[in-house]
């Protein structure tokens, strides 16, 4: 974080190059690779998290000691991320009812709500691959 007197901002250039590369990689993973839907989703989400980290640490100076703000910015980002995870995963977990009913074998709810929530990803694994490209 001490490069603010250098003429060439190495850190920014590296960060920029990395984020372009990661974007292309994510696009290729989603549209060009032959991975299954679950793998695609997990890996591109991980790539997105890495990119967010690049922005935070290389561009936004989240842990800069000159700021005299200690760990608070980092702390807010971290807890924000935790909460984001709770919100998204929690909502999907809770709102996917209709699938969890294990009574009688009819499962007619499955049809009406097939696309809501994470379960849909698994349901449609097969066709997803073909329609992707």
């Amino acid at each position, binding site marked *: 974080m001490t490069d603010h007197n250098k003429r060439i901002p190495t850190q920014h250039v590296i960060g920029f190059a990395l984020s372009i590369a990661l974007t292309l990689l994510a696009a290729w993973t989603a549209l060009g690779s032959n991975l299954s839907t679950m793998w695609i989703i997990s890996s591109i989400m991980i790539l997105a998290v890495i990119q967010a980290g690049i922005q935070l640490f290389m561009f936004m100076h989240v842990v800069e000691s000159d700021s005299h703000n200690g760990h608070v910015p980092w702390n807010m980002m971290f807890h924000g991320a935790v909460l984001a995870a709770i919100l998204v995963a929690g909502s999907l977990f809770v709102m996917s009812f209709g699938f969890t009913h294990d009574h009688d074998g009819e499962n007619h709810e499955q049809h*009406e709500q097939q696309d809501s929530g994470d379960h849909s990803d698994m349901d449609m694994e097969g066709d997803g691959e073909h329609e992707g490209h």
Partner: protein
Amino acid sequence: MKSMKQLMKKGLALVPLSLVLFLSGCELAVLDPKGPVAQTQYDLIMYSIIFMLFIVVVVFGAFAFMVIRYRENRPGRKESDYDPHMHGNNLIEIVWTVIPFVIVIALSIPTVDSLFELEKPPEATAGEEQKEPLVIYATTADWKWFFSYPEENIETVNYLHIPTDRPIEFKLSSADAMTALWIPRLGGQKYNMAGMENTLYLQADEEGVYDGRNSNFNGEGFTKQTFEVYAESEEDYDSWVEETQSSAPELTQEEYDELLKPGLTVEAEYSSTHLEFVDHGTNDGRDYAIERHYDLYGDLMHLYSDQEAEDFMDEENDDDHESSVE
């Protein structure tokens, strides 16, 4: 003030006691289970109340001790009764963390257990054969109940008959607002929602007439959205089914659409079900009522509490309501 404080403490102890005495005379619906589901919940509530009373007694006792003993002007206060620099004690912190934790575990186990149990039809008592659940589609519309018996091909409005000692599998859904089916003496509630279908198992062990209602607020007629459950022996139930099948009229789609209009309505029965034209619990049926009656939901009934459901039997228009208001 001192004496008042003590009085207050006695008063506090007396309030619950007198209430318990007062209430043991009458039977509180939830604490008067008439079927296995309500019984399971009753047992759990009683089990939890024991722990809760224990906690209340401990805390109230400690509180009374502290407040009485360490008040500033208690006669006979000693110098050693005051220690301003006491900052805490790790051991005792651990003790009063662990004990509540253990209580939470003790409460969690039967809770989880019963949660899974309630998702299945109640089991028959030992020695009796397990009966197939009777399927009833319980559908609400503002502010009435439809009970459809698909196998028997009959439908009732605002009341239902069930056989005793046989699990009832309610298929819950709603034509419009979210509601909940609750028959306190038979067991707890679940929500009815349009476009989704919830399953609720209940069962009556004793014959009788039980109050049921919608317990989730859904607008002006909410309070009046009640129904009665007639739990009767298998034979009586069968003869009621036969009679309804033979004597009740068929439910036409026009009549059903009319019934779906927001408003109160009286009891009725039909020898066919509305499931033939719409199942509100499916994705196709979720907007059936709202598409037909979109503009009617905003109309007010000007409902006062002494108005009986009969006032709203046939007419839905505002003029008639006005006249019954003043």
